[in-house]
């Protein structure tokens, strides 16, 4: 399991426990986001929590609107913007090599 997925799953389960909601037996890519055990408020808190831990909120960075429906899509969204941020950092540090 990669680190972003692991972080999201940990935060999600912690959020479910904190809110006193029911944890899903299994969490896979196809699990519907609203059936992970978290309600809308829980998901909202999760996005803030992840912004704190990962350093970005993909929902504020996206140019095209995306509302993920499954846990897999949610993880993909964070992974995509992590890659995007790494590329931006590389461009900022080595502008010449990126342009050549």
């Amino acid at each position, binding site marked *: 399991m990669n680190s972003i997925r692991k972080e999201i799953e940990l935060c999600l389960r912690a959020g479910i426990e904190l809110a006193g909601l029911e944890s899903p037996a299994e969490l896979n890519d196809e699990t519907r986001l609203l059936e992970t055990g978290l309600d809308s408020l829980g998901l909202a808190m999760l*996005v803030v929590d992840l912004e704190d831990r990962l350093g970005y909120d993909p929902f*504020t960075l996206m140019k*095209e609107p995306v509302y993920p429906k499954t846990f897999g899509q949610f993880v993909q969204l964070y992974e995509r913007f992590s890659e995007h941020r790494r590329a931006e950092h590389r461009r900022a540090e080595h502008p010449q090599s990126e342009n050549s």
Partner: protein
Amino acid sequence: MKHLIDHISNRVDDSPLIFHGDVALSSGQVLERVNAIRSSDTCLRGNRCHVQSDNGQGENDLDAILSLIAADGWSAAIVMGSSGERPTELSELPTTCDTRWHLATSGTTGEPKWVAHSLASLTRSLKVDSSKGATVRWGLLYDPCRFAGLQVVLQALLGGSSLVIPSDRTNFIQTVSEFQSHRVNALSTTPSYWRKLLMAGIAENLDLRLVTLGGEIADATLLVALQEAFPQARVTHIYASTEAGVGFAVSDGQAGFPAEFLDRPAQGVELKVDERGQLLVRSQETPASYADGTSITDRQGWVPTGDLVEKRGDRYCFLGRTNRVINVGGDKVHPKEIEDVALSVPGVALAHVRAKSNAIVGQVPELFVEPSSDVATDDADRTALRETVLERCRAELPRVKWPAKVTIVDELQLSAAGKLVGTSPQGTVSNGDGFKEGVSHAV
């Protein structure tokens, strides 16, 4: 003045008007039920009629809507409320049957305020093209005894459309399934509900032609996502309140509203922005006062909306509320409640809550805390203080009021412009909200 019962009597076809579960009531059947209510003791001619919804249960919503139709033009006053709400006492009743509709505001704290409307003020913005309306079927997602829900009911009844009342509004999946089977093609609800619908992966099951948002700030991301999800639909953001009625509707796919609305009143409602940046609205049908006699409008008839706006290019965008109230997915949270709890924690000198934008529920509370001078400045002590504050908030406040984020800052202070500026260990935190109530102090 035509009353609701006249509008229903005038319907020429006898196709279903109201759906509820397996029941489909034609306009003739609706009239039969309405007349039965008028013959009963619950809705006496010339008297007041209490109409109450009950926790989203469709059976009760249907009864409430039929009672409203019966009472309009029959009772002197309708007092509408939700389950558990104490109805307002009316000191005097009008002598005619030009019925007054008493609606409760969704007050932020304490008792709701009651606003008296007429059928004219409630219906001034409705579209009443019955040939177009006949192709529209509305799904009811709001409480029919609140302003927004009543708008949907009246639009369906007066606009020549039909209405689907779900069995249980609180059951999200079942409600969408019922709308799908009844071929609902028009929905009005809050931005938070729309986001939930998009994320649930069931929005595609609905073939919507009219998509309406209201009650919270609608961001451009959501408006674009809704247009993509429902390419055939007209996506409209409605600006309205119980006091002011419907202010305006915007369907251009952008957040906020065109600045030209201030010079060229749209839909007959005038707008202006005061020196604080607060939006004011004025229309001829605005009720003059609350039921307790407090004035709704100023001397010139303007209603202060409590919404702060800012001009950006050729548009005005919504920033938040003048009273700092945070709208968490439709639930209103007053910052002071959270600040008071934070200030009760030993070691907290100052506390300030602001709204943090959130893609799922619109806004969440974010808390900034300045430690008292006896708290050590090392990271471990700050982390411990942050955890204690969070624990105290979670123990003493309902979940919707839990701060989504707590930041310990060196110093909380207001800038000359009245904006919060805090210096955190990570750097400076500044807030563009523009609120002026300032920072809460520990005593």
